[in-house]
């Protein structure tokens, strides 16, 4: 018996038998071949995809390649499924959860808001649609580039010529590549052009007289504000398109969340943390929070 056990050929046969049995156990369908059917529909779909791209039908060889590629992908896909390669794959998890989000987005999109819904939304979010204050003003820039103390220069100019006309005042300032006069420009746009400090500074100066200095990204300015328009809420009809867009966007987020919460009710979430590295109070907190 011992001699037989040492015989390499018999080892080989034995291992072969074991493998065969194991394979039979694991793969019960080993005898029946899987079938991949390529029907009229599949082929015409491939052709129409190709035509969409190339504005001509594929040649016979191109079509053959397309079909081969598809079969290869399908076989790898099927085999991967058999090997459970889709399980616990982070990318696949994310992909499927994204698909669920697409579904819920589509559900959200089916609900058309009424004018009443939109008006309610407009009222509730009126701060979102409020226009910023707008200014009409003259400005004279005192740039630091060619001055020892541009702030002082501005202060002294204002002290000396508080009632100067624009043309008189202009000669004391520096030419920079933006306008001396802004008409009805909103605070956001002013911030973009002259830096965010500028509209902030405007809030503190008197109107209808030379005032300042007001700081910008380019130095300091003497300003003469001719008019300020207070923030207004544009008419509903004027911005209805924006309101619909925002309403639908918010609605989508809301429905995503509701659907998630609905699904979540079917799961009890158990926190199984035993390590003492974690504060038991934190674990307890997680346990209650996550099931709410």
């Amino acid at each position: 018996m011992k001699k037989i056990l040492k015989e390499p050929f018999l080892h080989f046969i034995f291992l072969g038998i074991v493998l065969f049995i194991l394979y039979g156990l694991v793969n019960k369908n080993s005898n029946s071949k899987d079938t991949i059917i390529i029907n009229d529909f599949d082929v015409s779909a491939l052709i129409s995809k190709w035509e969409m791209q190339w504005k001509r039908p594929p040649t016979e060889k191109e079509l053959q390649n397309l079909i081969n590629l598809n079969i290869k992908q399908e076989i790898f896909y099927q085999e991967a499924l058999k090997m459970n390669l889709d399980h616990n794959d982070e990318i696949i998890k994310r992909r499927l959860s994204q698909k669920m989000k697409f579904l819920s987005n589509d559900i959200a999109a089916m609900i058309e808001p009424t004018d009443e819904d939109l008006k309610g939304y407009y009222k509730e979010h009126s701060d979102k649609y409020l226009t910023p204050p707008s200014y009409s003003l003259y400005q004279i820039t005192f740039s630091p580039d060619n001055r020892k103390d541009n702030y002082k220069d501005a202060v002294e100019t204002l002290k000396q010529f508080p009632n100067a006309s624009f043309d008189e005042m202009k000669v004391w300032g520096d030419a920079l590549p933006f306008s001396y006069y802004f008409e009805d420009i909103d605070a956001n746009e002013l911030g973009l052009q002259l830096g965010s400090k500028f509209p902030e500074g405007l809030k503190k100066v008197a109107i209808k007289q030379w005032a300042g200095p007001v700081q910008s990204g380019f130095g300091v300015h003497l300003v003469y504000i001719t008019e300020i328009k207070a923030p207004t809420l544009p008419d509903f009809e004027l911005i209805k398109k924006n309101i619909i867009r925002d309403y639908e966007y918010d609605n989508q987020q809301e429905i995503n969340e509701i659907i998630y919460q609905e699904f979540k009710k079917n799961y009890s979430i158990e926190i199984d943390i035993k390590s003492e590295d974690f504060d038991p109070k934190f674990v307890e907190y997680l346990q209650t929070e996550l099931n709410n």
Partner: protein
Amino acid sequence: MKKILILLSFLTVVACKKDVKSEKITESNSTETKQPASRTAGYSETKNAYFGNLHIHTSWSFDGFTNGSVTDPDDAYRWAQGESIPGGGDGTPLQIKTPLDWYAVSDHAEWMGMFKMMADPSTPISKLDFAKRVTSKDQAIAFKAFGDFLYDFSTGGPLSKEPLFSDENIMKSVWKEIVDITENHNKPGKFTTFPAFEWSSNPNTQNLHRVVLFKNSDNIPEIAYSSLNSTRPEDLWTWMEDSRTNGATLLAIPHNGNASDGLMFSLNDSDGNPISKAYSDARSRNEPLYEISQIKGTSEVHPDLSPNDEFSNFEIWDYTLATTAERNTHRKGSYLRQALLDGIRIESEGNGNPFKYGIIGDSDSHNSAASIEEDNYTGKFGMENDPAHRVNGVPGFPEPNNQQIREFSSGGLAGVWAEENTREAIYNAMLKKETFGTSGTRMKVRFFGSFNFDENIISNDDWLTTAYAYGVPMGSNLTNPKGSAPTFIIQALKEANGANLDRAQIIKGWVDAKGKTQEKIYNVALSDDRTDGATPVGNTVDLKTAKYSNDIGAVQFFTTWTDPEFDASQNAFYYVRVIEIPTPRWSTYDAVSLGIPIRTDIPATIQERAWSSPIWYSPK
């Protein structure tokens, strides 16, 4: 199946509360999106600089999705206009400090359809009897319809063979949806959007990517062109020409020559033949602009190519697109300055100029937010939204890949000189190359050239009108020399909320009498009364707090320059480079906010910059 039950019962509950439309309105109102006949607010004959990005990916791009982005094109357009959007990664939301003027989401064309194809039943379903069933107020009917749909699609049942679900309509649904979202956010005079996609060809991991941008959605192709169709740029151009024949208006913008290992500006075509006149014509007709700076580095110039350019070593990202963080081996053919030189040489040899590129900067973020502000950097991918990940490394990533992430630059910007903030004006400016690129700063750069400028031109208040009337702006050609050298006007204004300027330079390239290419850099303006360009501007950055001061540098440069070595018989180009004073790199802001030491293997401070499109001179 049980889960779907709940989803449906919920749907029905909601449907009972509100009116349900059986047909989703996806067609945007065409009268609203057309350019208004009247001029919009801010219109200027002498043009304004509008800043934006056209190279932005979202979770609808395969790699945006796999790398943790949780947002879509709608979110991206909201971000650009100043709204806060979800960030993925550590969950920190994304919000820009100063909103942009225009934006174009350009998701990868590859697999674009596959993401929403099966999961998005909106348009085709709405045309079917199925739509009525699924939106029925009878719970049982709605439930069964939805269940049938999902079941059949996962098992290849009858509904999945329904032609409407699988024909070209559904194949193009994602592209159409992107176009629709883009239309929805376009507000002439306020915020401009463009439909776009990226053609992502990288043969042998050598990057040949191009963003394809449409002026509007008029006659836009039904499906984007992907590198699965072809990896040859020549084929992309043919497809673009075909699209033009069908009434679309579009251009392409290549990027990341630095990751192409010499292939982006190769002197041969895709078949290995030397560049012909026909190739040059097709390339320059379809590709007016090149993206010089973005998250995957700057590709103006490499120190190996221009060893005498002391500012050449700026945010170089020297990798191919291989996932193994493989380095490039070829410098020539990878950087724009070399390409501009090769272009005028090829032109002087009678084969046209294949590399006649205007310049923009852009982002290439894959997380909807362009991430252009150095002190508000949120990374290229969703997973880098956590500052510890982008500085210390993403857990589980090999170290060379983490180093690639640390060497990512913050996003760049495209500056466009246009009369107003509309598709018409901005697109036309791109076509005319009246653009400049920046590494992310919003400094504004003007550049004009002429044989007719009076040297006192800039002392006149109305100099801009004169400059346009008697000269050409950046991106144009100078011809007809009048026996004298050309004079250029250079104006640069610092970013309103940003850093002061160190210097303005003119970079000249030309073909000498022997047919060889030459380059020379002239400092045409220096801050702080310096007269020697070799004197550095200084550095005010405090590395402990990541703060700098504008006590050095200039607010504005405004000067003229006449080429002292002009030879009317030689092809040449001139472009402007304006350099800021040193400011903290994003990684330094991160280190300070995380309270960790600043790494020594990446620069702690950088000198952000802008590049104008060139002005070309040719003798005839």
